[in-house]
Structures are given as C-alpha cells and as structure tokens.
C-alpha cells in the first residue's frame, strides 16, 4: 500500500514537472517579445535573454504609437470603430434568426438551416472578389460600414447555429405561458428569451470581438486609405521594406494583441464555453 502511494506520488511529481516545463516552452516567445519591446535594438541583437547590458526604454512604444506611416494611436481607434458594431449587430440579427429556427415550423426550415450551417466552411477568399465588386458598386469600398456589414454577415452562420442550439434546450414553458397571457412574439423575445440567453450572448461577444479585431484579410481588401487602416494592417506597414526594428515592432505587436487578450481574460469562461460548445454538444 505504501509502495503504491509512493508510486502515485512520484507520478504526480513527474507530471507536474513535465507540465511546468511544457508551459515554460510555450511562454518563452511571449516573454521574448515583451523583453524586446523595452530594450534597444543592439541589446536584442545580442540576445534578449542576456542581461549584462540592460537599458530598458519606452522608445519602441512611443515610436509604434506615433509611427509616421501607420501610427497605432489612430489604428487602434479605427479597429475599435469597426470591431464594436461588428460584435453587437450580428448578435442581434443572429438571435432573431436562431429564435425562428428554434421555435417555429415553416416550409424550407430545415433546408434553410442546413444551408446556413454549411456556410460556416466558406473561407474568406471565396467571397472576397464579389464582395470587393459589390462594395465598390454601392460606394462602400474603403468605408467602415462596408467592412462592418461584411463581418456581420460572415458571423451569422456560426452564431445562428450556436444560438439555435442554445434556444432549443431553453424550456418553452415560460414562453408559452407568456403567450397565453397575450404577449406578442417580439415581447417574448426581448423580455424573456434574451435575458435568459445572456451567457450565450457573452460567448458570442467574446468570440466575435476577438475574431474581428484579429482579422487582416477583409481589412486589407476593403480598407485602403492610410488614415483608415486598422491595427492589424499597421503591423506590416510598420515593418516596411526593411528588416524590422525589433524594438518598435515588438512594442507594436504588444499594443495590438493586448486588446483581444484582455477580452479573453475578462470573458474567459464564456470564450471557452463558446469554442467548446461545438465539441460537447456534437
């Protein structure tokens, strides 16, 4: 019995060691970027893990923030202007749509739903050329409204699937009772169903915000004016045609990635639930 306990203990210690070793490996690149962002270029070229010479500086951040070609001061604001509506509008539209799939029967319902679900697999490259042409013809090229509409539409397939699954396990008795009491469908939707859906909406918010903020491809095709460029576009613009100044580009990277990381940390529970919902529910 004692021998077995010792064996278990050794196994646990081993597992702990391996786990922490692996996590160290995973963290190191991030550690590197943080180090590089506060150290002058010569120190980085010598190896950021060397600390004999250590003169931290915030020059990288100020240069990235005020860069002549693509200042992050503007780019971050631009990304917010695009990301916030692109996060909230699809949720509303998807919720309405998902609700009708979950609560009603109508002709072509299942076929329509299946089509929408299948649309999830469509890559951005498949739609970008016609979207480019459409945006030009309705005057929404190089315009945030066009980009927001595109992000909204692109979010709908997976959000509708997600919410419909959520609605279908929501007990209907509450809604039915309200209907008996004479409430309209809209009232039921807004006053009863939506409040109960808040956890799911939190998941959608977290996932969609991060997705839109991180997007590069749609922005690259639809936004061209230098002052309109988004945060993700600012990074290659700051790298320019020369080898990167690692201090500046590391600082820029940190500024751009800190936002989605913050959202993830704040809404972690919901973010993870959102990702996992596909797996567990099957």
């Amino acid at each position: 019995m004692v021998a077995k306990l010792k064996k278990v203990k050794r196994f646990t210690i081993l597992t702990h060691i391996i786990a922490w070793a692996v996590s160290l490996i995973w963290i190191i690149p991030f550690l590197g970027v943080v180090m590089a962002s506060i150290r002058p270029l010569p120190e980085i070229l010598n190896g950021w893990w060397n600390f004999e010479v250590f003169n931290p500086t915030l020059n990288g951040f100020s240069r990235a923030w005020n860069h002549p070609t693509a200042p992050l001061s503007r780019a971050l604001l631009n990304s917010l202007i695009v990301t916030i509506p692109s996060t909230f509008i699809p949720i509303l539209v998807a919720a309405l749509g998902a609700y009708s799939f979950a609560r009603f029967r109508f002709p072509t319902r299942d076929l329509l739903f299946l089509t929408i679900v299948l649309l999830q697999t469509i890559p951005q490259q498949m739609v970008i050329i016609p979207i480019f042409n459409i945006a030009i013809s309705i005057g929404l090229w190089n315009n945030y409204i066009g980009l927001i509409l595109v992000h909204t539409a692109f979010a709908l397939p997976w959000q509708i699937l997600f919410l419909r699954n959520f609605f279908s396990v929501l007990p209907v008795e509450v809604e039915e009772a309200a209907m008996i009491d004479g409430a309209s469908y809209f009232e039921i939707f807004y006053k009863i169903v939506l409040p109960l859906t808040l956890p799911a909406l939190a998941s959608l918010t977290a996932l969609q915000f991060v997705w839109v903020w991180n997007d590069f491809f749609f922005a690259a095709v639809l936004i061209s004016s230098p002052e309109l460029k988004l945060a993700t576009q600012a990074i290659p613009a700051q790298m320019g045609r020369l080898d990167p100044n690692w201090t500046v580009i590391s600082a820029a990277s940190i500024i751009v990635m800190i936002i989605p990381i913050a959202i993830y940390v704040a809404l972690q529970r919901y973010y993870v639930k959102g990702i996992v919902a596909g797996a567990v529910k099957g």
Partner: protein
Amino acid sequence: MSRRQIKIPLLFLTPALLLLTIFVLFPVVNTIYISLLNQEGEFVGLDNYAEVFGRKEFWNPQNLIEGKPPPYGALIHNGIWILVHLPLSVFFGLLLAVLLRDVKGGAIIKSAVFLGVVIPMIVGGVLLRFIYEADAGIVNAFLRVVGLGHLARTWTAFPQTILLSLILGSVWIWTGFSMIVYSAGLEGIPMELFEVAKIDGASRWRTFWRITVPMLRPATIVVVTMTLLWELKIFDIVWVIQRGGPGGASMVMAVMMYLRAFLYIPSNFGTASAIATLLTIMTFGFAAYLVNRMVKS
C-alpha cells in the same frame, strides 16, 4: 411551442437572410462563375483551373519527387502543412489537456498556452519571424546551447527551411485550441467509468486507450475539422513574413489567390477565383466528411 407560422419567422429571419444572401451566398456562387471566365469576361470553362495547375507557383511536384527542397507549389505546401501540423497539434493538445488536468495552477498554464489562438495571426507571424532570427531569435540560442550552433541562421530567410519553420511555429500557435477542446471533452467523461476501470484493476495506460480516447471521439472530430480548415486558410502568417517567398517557397493558396486578384494589372480575377474555389472544395469536402462521421457515431 413549435407553431406553424410563416409571417413571424420570416420577419425574424429577414435581416439575417438579407445579409447572408448579399455577402455570403451570392459571392460564393459569383466566385465560381468568375472562375469560368477569362479576363475579357468570356466563358472559357475550366481553362483557368488548367492554367493554375500549369503554374509552378501552384503545382510543382517535380522538386518533391526528386527529393529537392521547396518550392513545391502552393497546393502541395498546404498539403504539407496539413500532414505536419495536424498530427502535432492534435497530439500536443491532447497531451497538454491530460497533463494539466490535475496539476496545480493548470488553469493558468492552459490560459497561457491558449494565448496563441487569441492573438492576431499577423502578430503570430511577427513572433515567428522573431524567434527564427539569426542573432535575436530564441531558436538559434537554443541550438547554440545544445551544441548545434553551426546550424544557426535566419530560418525564415531560406527557401529550404522557411516552410517547415512556419509550420512548426504554427503548431506552437494553434495547439492551445486542441488543448482547450480536449480539456472540455475530458471533463465530460463521467467519473463512474474511471472508477469502474480502477475497480477492475485496469492500468492507467489501458484506461487511457480503452476509455478516454474513444470517449473523446466527438472532441477529436471537432479538433481535426477546425484544424484542417485553419491549415487550408493560412494567410496572415505567410504574408507578414515573406509574402510567399523567397522564390515561392512559402506560397500558400490563400496568398496566391490574393496576389492574382490584386497585384496583377489587369487583375486575374478568373484564376484567383479558381484558386479560391479549389480551396473551398477542399475545406467543404473535409468538413462534410468529418461531420458526417461524427453524426454517424
């Protein structure tokens, strides 16, 4: 409350259907249509597809067959990406999920590993470029420490090594995803199964293979599907590092499509659409097949 109605659901669905039709459904059909036209707008059938396969940039198995280093063409590059990246990130994801289940502070470690999935892929590319730099990169420092310093170089500057460097780097980025899905899957396995196994005297190893893995089947299918799609659609990482170079050694389908559409004057929308369509057939095909298997089980 399944009411048979038309007006209300239609009303609720209208905004979604409108947006989906204009910005998703119609573009998909339109892209397929454009892929069948030449630059003057005349119908040429599958000419664009034939032209695409005729370009070494897209399809160059000769080098591969002769055992030479890349470039092998964008299609083959995506294929190699799948062959290397998929098993590695699935394996490491599962390993980490199992390892970190009972470890103190496991939640924090999992969050840290998952960061790779949360950051913009443009930044991911910058990080990869940084770790592979000759003097400033951690990979070369490691090589020097283990006595392989003579191999040190900027791995992303050379056609022989850039593809594999990017693929391995992308494993580091993406493993967090499979880890999180497997973690949830593990939590979903009822404890009773493990207790029964213990009572029956099954070893840890046996329990793992006979109970854990089969019960993780739905999770595995999700991980494989999403990872496959991610590998086929790689763009940002390749773009920010070498835009498909040097010499096309890191070209992938998404980047090639973008260049054909927006670099060429006049733009080659036809060939770009052909590449996009091929890409979609692959993503759709894989997804459909895997989802089918999941539904069956």
